[in-house]
């Protein structure tokens, strides 16, 4: 208790705890999808910070282990308690507060989420994996600090070395399964994913068992004998088995999945969004209704729209089509959703000739009210002519020219 209390209060570990708290909380709360309040964003915020948290954990652990080792060399040598026990108590006093800081940050984020109506729920195994990564990074720093001679720069050097190793690993273009064994995550969470628990669990086991193995090797006073090998064997087996699992799954922790947790509004079309995106549902439905009016009587007109993520688990039920909405920072984000619908279900994929593509693109922008040009509908004569039609004229024009549009054969003569 003396060690734990004093280390907590009077060592760099306290600084590490505060840094991890600040980093995790600010990153989790600061990482938002504009317009929405999602747990997935909180998780991504915590995940984005994992390399920084790892650097902090490695740095303070190395610093603390280095100075503890230097000032206690004789005491440790002449201790009657087992070297392994003494070492593990100290390592625990260093690493547990760092891990605890992560969970305190998570608790603060969860409290904030509860008061702000954040949609969704965190994957506990994802959080456990992030925490275990901090423990491994701290353990690596601890081992480095313990084996190196006493120097003031051991802590900062360990932190920088860990960061450099991460950069080099990413630059090496190693398979993601290998990258996933590094104690810093670059995974991405979303409402529209299912977590692969086997990978997350294996990652957590790998981080923890490697930490335990490193500490065990450090704590053994003598050159490993048969007994020491016997002690280390379970951890070696766990490290190898969990590491291989992560590598063989290529570190994939999510797979596309629409939970089909929807709230729906309106008719012609009925728009169904995930409750986390509900804030945008009425204005977005208005944009789609305008679009549905213009395309009425054609196959392009939507009847029922379900929110999906393009390319990931993008499988709307029969009679529905996908609507995409990533963020709502500006009105353009809503019209961009319609634009993406048009691009997916319109003629763009049929186009191979230049003229048809050009006029088709102009029609797509007019239909969705989304213009890539900053001049908007005033960008050129074609877009101006399309936009200047009344809704009734527009609907009539599109219905009359739908076949040409669909076959990507619109010409200048077709334009209003």
């Amino acid at each position: 208790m003396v060690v734990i209390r004093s280390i907590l209060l009077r060592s760099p570990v306290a600084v590490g705890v505060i840094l991890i708290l600040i980093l995790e909380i600010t990153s989790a709360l600061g990482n938002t999808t504009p317009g929405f309040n999602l747990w997935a964003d909180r998780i991504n915020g915590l995940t984005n910070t994992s390399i920084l948290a790892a650097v902090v954990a490695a740095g303070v652990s190395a610093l603390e282990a280095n100075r503890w080792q230097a000032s206690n060399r004789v005491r440790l040598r002449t201790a009657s308690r087992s070297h392994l026990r003494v070492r593990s108590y100290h390592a625990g006093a260093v690493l547990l507060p760092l891990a605890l800081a992560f969970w305190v940050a998570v608790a603060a984020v969860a409290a904030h989420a509860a008061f702000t109506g954040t949609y969704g729920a965190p994957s506990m195994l994802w959080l456990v994996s992030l925490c275990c990564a901090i423990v491994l990074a701290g353990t690596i720093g601890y081992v480095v600090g313990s084996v190196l001679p006493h120097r003031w720069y051991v802590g900062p050097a360990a932190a920088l070395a860990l960061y450099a190793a991460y950069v080099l690993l990413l630059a090496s273009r190693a398979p993601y399964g290998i990258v996933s064994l590094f104690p810093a995550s670059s995974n991405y969470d979303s409402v529209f994913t299912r977590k692969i628990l086997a990978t997350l669990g294996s990652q957590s086991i790998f981080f923890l068992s490697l930490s335990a193995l490193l500490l065990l090797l450090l704590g053994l006073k003598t050159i490993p004998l048969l007994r020491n090998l016997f002690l280390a064997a379970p951890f070696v087996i766990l490290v190898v088995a969990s590491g291989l699992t992560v590598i063989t799954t290529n570190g994939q922790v999510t797979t596309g999945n629409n939970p089909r947790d929807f709230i729906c509004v309106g008719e012609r079309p009925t728009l169904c969004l995930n409750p986390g995106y509900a804030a945008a549902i009425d204005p977005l439905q208005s944009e789609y209704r305008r679009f549905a009016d213009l395309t009425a009587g054609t196959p392009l007109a939507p009847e029922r729209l379900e929110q999906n993520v393009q390319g990931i688990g993008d499988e709307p039920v029969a009679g529905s089509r996908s609507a995409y909405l990533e963020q709502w920072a500006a009105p353009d984000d809503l019209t961009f959703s319609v634009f993406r619908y048009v691009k997916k279900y319109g003629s763009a994929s049929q186009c191979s000739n230049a003229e048809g593509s050009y006029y088709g693109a102009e029609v797509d922008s007019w239909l969705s009210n989304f213009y890539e040009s900053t001049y908007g509908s005033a960008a050129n004569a074609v877009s101006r002519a399309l936009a200047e039609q009344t809704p009734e004229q527009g609907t009539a024009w599109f219905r009359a020219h739908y076949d040409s549009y669909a076959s990507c054969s619109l010409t200048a003569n077709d334009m209003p």
Partner: protein
Amino acid sequence: MKKGPVLRAIDLSLQRGSRFIYEDFSIDLEIGLTAVLGPNGVGKTTLLEALSDPATIRRGEVRLNDEPFERGSGDAPYFARTGFLPQKWTSYRGFSVRDTVSYVAWLKGLDSRASNDAVARVLRDLDLEHLARERVHKLSGGIQQRVGLAEAFVHDPLLVLLDEPTVGLDPEQRSIVRRYLKNEAKTKAIVLSTHLTDDVEAIADRVVVVLKGSIVFDGTPDELVALNTAAENNTAGIEAGYLEVIRLNSTGAL
């Protein structure tokens, strides 16, 4: 306690680097305070460090209370019954006086209740009670030295090895330490390496002078004083006797 020497070191060979400092060196240590004297570099620290951790000894045998030191996992009983104050004592930055001594009590195997009692006792005896909450690294060198002594004694060891424990102490502190050591020496074998012959005169029961890897004098302080037949002009007492021993051994007369 068993009769006979507290510690028997038999035929030790001790190295510093690749150089042998002691070969086939033997010594018995009994209850009481033994002062080890010798010129600089003769190997007093090497001897105390070796006895503090016999695992570092290349050849020879160390028996504490007639039980042989066992390397590896069997070394715990030896360390539980020995205390050591190294020449360069370092504190763990941030620890208070109480933390420091409590930590060593824990390392030496005391449970928390025994530790609390032992720490309170040793801090009181070394007049450190009022400094218990102070951080060690902020205290003067002399007080830090007393904290080091408290560490060496906190677990009530049978054998205590002190490498120059009174260096840097002011007269008042030296008096406190001498009184403490004198009292503890009634029940413990205390070995004290020192250059300060007045310490030897004040508290030692036995004096051992080492030179060139051998014991060249082993007797009481009075016997060492009695060796002063050369009548050095500027020294007297223990110091004169010690210098005479060194002189005779350097010239090969003894």
